[in-house]
């Protein structure tokens, strides 16, 4: 369960970028998570609701964009899902590139600006 440390990192990044952009609150977060990365969406959401409480990101929505894993065989060029197999299911080679599925980053945030009731964070 490393989602707690992961969620703490997300909060630090979100508040820093929100502050730089003159946000009063952060409303939405857009995360990109590859299939092969070991992140459980529900756990991040669970910790997020707890650790963002009392910050300008409290109550914000998390949006996960899941990227499917994609393997590419260097021997025969076949592409396939890591759920099928790890060695190439077409020719049996183990000379494989992982083309997608290892992503784990914050793509964008949505912020509120110019709310007269609130000070920028």
């Amino acid at each position, binding site marked *: 369960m490393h989602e707690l440390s992961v969620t703490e990192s997300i909060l630090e990044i979100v508040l820093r970028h929100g502050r730089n952009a003159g946000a009063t609150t952060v409303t939405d977060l857009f995360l990109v998570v590859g299939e092969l990365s070991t992140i459980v969406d529900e756990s991040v959401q669970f910790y997020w609701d707890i650790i963002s409480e009392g910050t300008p990101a409290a109550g914000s929505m998390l949006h996960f964009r899941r990227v499917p894993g994609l393997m590419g065989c260097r021997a025969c060029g076949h592409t396939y899902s890591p759920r099928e197999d*790890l060695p190439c299911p077409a020719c049996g080679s183990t000379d494989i590139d992982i083309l997608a599925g290892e992503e784990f980053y914050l793509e964008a945030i949505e912020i509120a600006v110019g709310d007269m009731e609130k000070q920028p964070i």
Partner: protein
Amino acid sequence: MITERVPVVEKILGANDRLAADNRARLDAAGVYSLNFLASPGAGKTSLVEQTVGRLAGRLRLAVVDGDIATSLDADRAAAAGAKAVQINTGGECHLDAVMLQGALEVLDLPAVDLLIVENVGNLVCPANFALGTHKSVLVASVPEGDDKPYKYPGTYRGVDALVINKIDLLPYVDFDMEYFRRGAAALNPGLATFPMSCRTGEGLDTWIEWVIAQVEANRG
């Protein structure tokens, strides 16, 4: 209320990666070579630490940093084998991170160390996400865990520099298809240095020890 979208594109664990780079710089400045041992609980990380320390104690000055959720049992075993040992109790965290290693490096006399072994928390998932700044990562797999582990934990097999297959003395007693296991690991990590061994019988340990010495010497340049 006006809302706007702000592009970020930042790696979530970038802060840990930066601290890991600081740790590496500090180890390099002191001339310390370092290995990070990853494994599931019970694969034989501590046995491999004991065997490695026991066989190298006369040749290299050794230190061990042991990560565990609780207790100092593993650090005690490393110290008994002849290494300077530091215990990190993570208090429930499932992995070591760069900050925890930074704290452990503070209490070691680094210029008096040639080889530092970091024994991570027993876990096949989380430690792979948190770089520590060590020079190489070694995954300790073991025969009784089963031959499907590369297929189930691809991220961990993907990110390591060497693979130990421990407990090969148990091969006659369990259904472990070595070919299937090695092909899974090879697809994720081509050319991975692999060391079949038994820490109990000593089989395969000489080859492993030679590899460790070669790494330390290559790092000295």
